[in-house]
């Protein structure tokens, strides 16, 4: 491989990572935009969802990498898996909101955020104790198709990941900017009290934000499983923390910021690993988090925090 090919390959790697981080970052941003709550349970909603996706694929009789589908059956299997995973993930998010966070809503301060940390650990341990600690061999029905691209390799799964991510993001953007509920979400994000006075059902908006954010985490989780052919109960922490950094970098509360932040973090991870050594990746990423928090707390595309008195 010549030098350009290596960088092209790392660009491909970084964009795939970035797509996953972006989907995951959206969940932080949607909830933060409306409740100003950092939802740490999101880490492990992602992790649990990867198991939902695995079970959905196994339900179709797919296990390991033994069964390879092409054409319509592949599209059907993936569509089924995405719908099941995203629906279950969304419902999990709504359940967390309903059971653990709504009772805390009237409480001031950091109690709600700490509750989300608790919920995160509950999910983590429930999975550890029920499905076990070993790494799971994730089903992958995608054929091993790849194209040579100037010395680099572009695989079918990367193309699919980018395609699915773009569809989901465009869909989300349209939903937030065009639909009634989306407009209600934006109104609530700007000023919940005024929105309530205008007759917006704020509870419904909050439930929607949790559902959408968690469903996107579900999509990210399934993509994660298909991409790495692997899942385990520990995956939430590292991916979640990076996605959170992406959300902050892009401007927490901003939907397009989360997308941009995700891609940037993905690229930093792959190109940083190439230029230095992978053992420095965490140092680079979290230094960026600190620098953003100090010098540009509203992030790249974030609005300055509204003054709620």
């Amino acid at each position, binding site marked *: *491989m010549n*030098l350009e*090919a*290596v960088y092209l*390959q*790392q660009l491909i*790697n*970084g964009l*795939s*990572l970035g797509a996953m981080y972006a989907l995951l970052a959206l969940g932080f941003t949607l909830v933060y935009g409306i409740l100003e709550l950092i939802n740490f349970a999101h880490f492990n909603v992602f992790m649990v969802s990867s198991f939902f996706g695995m079970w959905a694929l196994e339900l179709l009789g797919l296990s*390991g*990498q033994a069964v390879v589908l092409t054409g319509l059956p592949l599209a059907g299997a993936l569509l089924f898996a995405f719908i099941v995973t995203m629906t279950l993930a969304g419902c999990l998010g709504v359940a967390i909101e309903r059971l653990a966070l709504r009772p805390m809503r009237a409480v001031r301060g950091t109690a709600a955020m700490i509750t989300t940390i608790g919920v995160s650990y509950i999910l*983590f*341990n429930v999975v*550890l104790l029920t499905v*076990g*600690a*070993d*790494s*799971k*061999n994730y089903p992958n029905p995608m054929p091993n198709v790849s194209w040579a691209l100037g010395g680099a390799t572009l*695989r079918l799964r990367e193309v699919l990941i980018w395609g699915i991510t773009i569809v989901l993001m465009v869909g989300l953007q349209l939903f937030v900017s065009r639909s009634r509920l989306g407009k209600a979400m934006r109104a609530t994000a700007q000023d919940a009290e005024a929105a309530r006075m205008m007759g917006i059902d704020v509870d419904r908006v909050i439930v929607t934000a949790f559902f959408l954010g968690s469903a996107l985490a579900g999509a990210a989780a399934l993509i*994660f499983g298909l991409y*790495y*052919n*692997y899942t*385990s*109960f*520990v*995956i939430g*922490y*590292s*991916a979640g923390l990076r996605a959170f950094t992406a959300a902050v970098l892009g401007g927490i509360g901003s939907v397009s910021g989360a997308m941009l932040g995700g891609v940037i973090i993905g690229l930093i*991870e*792959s190109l940083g*690993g*190439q230029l230095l*050594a*992978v*053992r420095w*990746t*965490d140092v680079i990423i979290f230094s960026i988090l600190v620098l953003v928090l100090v010098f540009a707390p509203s992030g790249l595309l974030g609005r300055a925090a509204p003054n709620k008195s």
Partner: protein
Amino acid sequence: MLSRRSLIVQLPAATLAGSVALRAFAADKTVTIGIDLPLTGADAQSAQKIKDGAIMAIDEANEKGGAGGYKLNPLVLDDGTATAGQYDPAQAATNARKMVSDDTVVAAIGPQMSGSGKAMSPILSQGNLATITPSSTNPDITSPKFAGQYRPGGKAIYFRTVTTDAFQGPNMANYYADTLKVKSVYVLDDSGAYGVGIADTFQAQSQKRGLNVLGRDQLNPKEADYTTVLTKIKSLNPDSLYYGGVAQAGVKLVKQSYDIVPTIVKGGGDGMYGPEVLKGAGFPACAGWYATIAAPHVLGDPAVAEWTARFTKKFGEPPEDYSITAYDAANVIIDAIARVAASGKPVNRDNVRDAIQSTKLKTLQGEITFDENGDLVNKVISVFQIVKDDTKPLDDVAYQYKYMGVAPQSA
């Protein structure tokens, strides 16, 4: 139903009530053997097989009336935690304190992992409580160079029924150079005590043997994505890859290296020997990987076939080589307790430690004797390659890891 006696034994024996009650037991002659293993986390399956090996020896001794008349009571402690997702040295230290504070514990088996061993050794040393590890191979723990750090009590308390990475890493480097005839290598580790240690010794010997070491990097076991480092490795075009580390990072490395660098020679140490690799990475990704163990390979030996059958019958799952080293470790302790009892001296930690030190016992892996640091006198590194055997269960270590021979010892 619990009898009153077993209820007392099951109480956390560190409590005052527990230890008083247990001391009163001396008439009934029971002693405790501590067992510390990562029973939750990424290495849980091989830890379970190690535990089974030890429990089997203890059960057999108890059926024959105990060791020198002493009934043996295993105290099983888990050093794996959810936060670490694998073995956790902090938990291992807590477990070591628990064993030391329990007067009935006369010796211990474990830990599985060197990271835990480094945390436990100083604590056990201060309590003069001997442990025998069936699998942890980091050489520092028993090296006289670090005696001040790991052996502040003075005497050797960390014994092994395996040899160390001072042989496992270098001998595999010799195998790479002599048998596999590779010219260049990229070295990775998983940032744990074991992984860094074995990768260091492998790298040093590779350089000595004239292999071109193209680079060295470190994987974060909690991170999922290794495509970056693998792309970098691919661009350097090495003949081979060596990974020092355990399964948590190893499984992901196997998967992703199969996609990115499918054809080069890939291998690791005993961290890559176990059902986790076969199950988590699966075929075809894991096929072709080399792994070593720091013990002679006796599982395939007809002499242990009968033992293997008994093991499989008792636990419903086949053993692996470190089940044997665990079984041997337990038998060394049982033999030591029996010798102390026979000599008429009190069966306590100090005497059991001294008896373990002077062990000369025929076991499944051959005769076991220890040097003054607690290391095995016999040093054998066995090499395996994962070769798919469709006729047998695909996660059965005994069949899917094909024995390739003994790695050449450096002169």
